[in-house]
């Protein structure tokens, strides 16, 4: 199996796994399944005022984490169906990290308070940027890279 095929396989399984995770998060809130709370506790602070709620029950992850998982899932889906290799993904990832860090800092300074939809959006951008960075750097087979380099020198 080539590196490119391996990468697409990871993207497909990643998309399925993340979809199951997101459905479980929403089902836990909709149906009031409290037993799922401790399972994701190591990955998120789970403060209820920073989480979206369904039927009056807060989700078991905060809006930023929900956005990250959503962005990762979208990135995995995109790569599994239509791989695209973006050259400057490293810089875009740094920008996405800076936006999320900046949002946390600005909120801590008191400029605004608890904008869940903004955190969801920024988290989604970060998740998608992580997926795009990883698949852009690992989704090409090495034979293709060598071929391009050789032809430019001839």
């Amino acid at each position, binding site marked *: 199996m080539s590196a490119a095929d391996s990468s697409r396989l*990871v993207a497909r399984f990643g998309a399925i796994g993340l979809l199951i995770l997101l459905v479980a998060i929403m089902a836990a809130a909709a149906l009031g399944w409290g037993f799922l709370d401790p399972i*994701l506790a190591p*990955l998120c602070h789970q403060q209820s005022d920073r989480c979206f709620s369904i039927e009056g029950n807060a989700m078991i992850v905060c809006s930023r984490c929900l956005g990250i998982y959503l962005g990762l899932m979208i990135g995995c889906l995109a790569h599994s169906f239509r791989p695209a290799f973006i050259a400057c993904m490293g810089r875009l990832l740094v920008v996405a990290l800076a936006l999320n860090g900046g949002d946390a800092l600005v909120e801590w300074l008191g400029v605004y308070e608890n904008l869940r939809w903004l955190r969801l959006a920024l988290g989604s951008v970060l998740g998608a940027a992580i997926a795009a960075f990883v698949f852009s*750097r690992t989704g090409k087979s090495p*034979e293709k890279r060598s071929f391009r380099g050789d032809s430019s020198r001839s």
Partner: protein
Amino acid sequence: MSEESEIVDLDQCPIKPAIVTGGGIAFLLTLFPMSVVLCCLPLVLGGFAATTAFIFKYRVRLELKFGMKVAILACMAGFGASTLLYDALWLGFDYRIGMELQIDFLRQMQEASPDESTREQFEKGIEEMRNQTFGFGTIVSQTVTILICSGIGGAIGGALATAMFKKGPLAQ
């Protein structure tokens, strides 16, 4: 022909040193009582360290799935070890690492929250934490937590390290 055409046999590259490195970092960070405020970073860092250690030790480039596998295994080892230590102290000495610190932190969040229903949920959570007893349900819950959280955090950390560092020929 460039070294990119070489394939390194992974059977010649034991993963134990990488698991020890990444697992050690995951162990220390997950044992730290307030690591929950760092969200998934402790496990992402542990997984990142494991895959990075493997790549630099053998000077190779990895396939994505192998890089993620090394990271997930390291996170499971580290997080599992810190959970075992936590349970051993709980059962042996009735001491739960970081519990009082965590309750103080939750009380501060409770006092700072403007919403009455959120304050009640904090109180409920604190009571549940104090009254929790160790049993079969706790073991099952902790096992599932280790598997899922290590899977998520390790996969992200391992994927990032695999994408960032390419030190030589492909290892398969």
